[in-house]
């Protein structure tokens, strides 16, 4: 059962941050998708829904996605459907059902750094930047590898470029969490290869990225990149699959995503 002692609706990001910094019992609410799981007691729930963080803004160089934008809003946004071959949409559209996606937010998914997250995997391949109220702008990659922040995530910035990307995942049933997920992107002659839900957090595979940058993307190098990913990553067991199985399907997901990028050209 969830128990909340107090719920506050800060009028400004500054107020919200002040609460989080001064009140050790403060918990920032995202979309509340996981809030009811297990039994939990929250002293101060900080609700950001009055701060206008639920919009997607297009600027000259980027798309700025407010932390409170729901996965469903993202999924139905015409720009996000086109940007980076719609890889971010591919990464969210099979998460449970549209009702849940209407509730849960991109900010919540990112801030929580969930290892099973599909959008985080896609965002890494898109070189997403995060803007925190306190810490300012940091890359998603640094945030994932860092210690975590007691801060307010304000927005997620997607750099606008001619990026071709793809997202693939293996799921035991359509609406389940991914056993393994993968996102790749080509930016000019550079590549991103990301594998997540290993079951630990999503990570870029430098060996595969360098191989592709050096040799270009072909069907052969796509396959090689997949094998490099499987060789260079660690995989573990969790209820959705064994490390052994993940290692076996990793090359397949990477190869398929890269071929999607290749065929898109």
């Amino acid at each position, binding site marked *: 059962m969830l128990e909340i002692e107090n719920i506050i609706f800060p009028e400004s990001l500054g107020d919200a941050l002040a609460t989080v910094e001064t009140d050790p019992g403060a918990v920032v609410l995202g*979309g509340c998708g996981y809030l009811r799981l297990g039994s939990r007691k929250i002293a101060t729930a900080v609700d950001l829904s009055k701060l206008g963080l639920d919009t997607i803004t297009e600027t000259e160089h980027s798309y700025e996605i407010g932390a409170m934008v729901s996965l469903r809003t993202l999924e139905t946004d015409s720009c996000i459907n086109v940007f980076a071959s719609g890889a971010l949409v591919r990464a969210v559209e099979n998460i449970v059902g549209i*009702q849940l996606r209407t509730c849960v937010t991109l900010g919540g998914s990112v801030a929580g750094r969930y290892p099973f997250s599909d959008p985080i995997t896609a965002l890494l391949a898109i070189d997403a930047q995060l803007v925190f109220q306190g810490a300012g702008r940091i890359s998603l990659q640094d945030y994932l590898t860092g210690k975590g922040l007691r801060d307010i995530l304000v927005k997620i910035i997607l750099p606008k470029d001619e990026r071709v990307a793809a997202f693939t995942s293996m799921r035991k049933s359509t609406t389940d969490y991914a056993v393994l997920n993968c996102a790749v992107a080509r930016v000019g002659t550079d590549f991103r290869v990301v594998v997540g839900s290993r079951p630990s957090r999503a990570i870029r595979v430098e060996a595969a990225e360098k191989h592709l940058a050096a040799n270009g993307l072909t069907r052969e190098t796509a396959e090689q990149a997949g094998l490099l990913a499987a060789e260079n990553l660690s995989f573990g067991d969790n209820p959705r699959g064994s490390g052994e199985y993940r290692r076996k399907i990793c090359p397949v997901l990477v190869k398929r995503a890269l071929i999607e990028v290749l065929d898109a050209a």
Partner: protein
Amino acid sequence: MQLETTINGNTVTLDFAAGEFLSETLRRYGYLSVKEGCDTGSCGLCTVWLDGKPTLSCSTLTARMQGHEITTIEALAGEAEEFARFLVAEGAEQCGFCAPGFAMTVLAMKRELKEPTVTSINHYLAGNLCRCSGYKGQMRAIVKYLGVK
């Protein structure tokens, strides 16, 4: 806590505990069409419209409802009955426990999907579980209801 919100077109003042979810509040206030099936946001039974969008009322804090517009199937009786006739013509409502949340999602889908296909319908409704029907009879009903070719 207290707040003012709109339920089925009426302004309502709700009294609730801070950690209460909307599905519980709605049932407490007599909107008994709202069912709960899972405790984990997985089944879709509790679907209501929040500002016109199908939402899991079991995962929505009532405390966030100030100034919003909530719609349950009680407010859509005519439309719901029209769809219900298609569903029962296939025998697909069965135990009926998932049916109100399912119907709310279907009615939202009718508004949202411009040219629905079997694939896009299945995707839209993926979050609505049903253990009785096997889903195929539900699809036959929807295809006829929406006139999908």
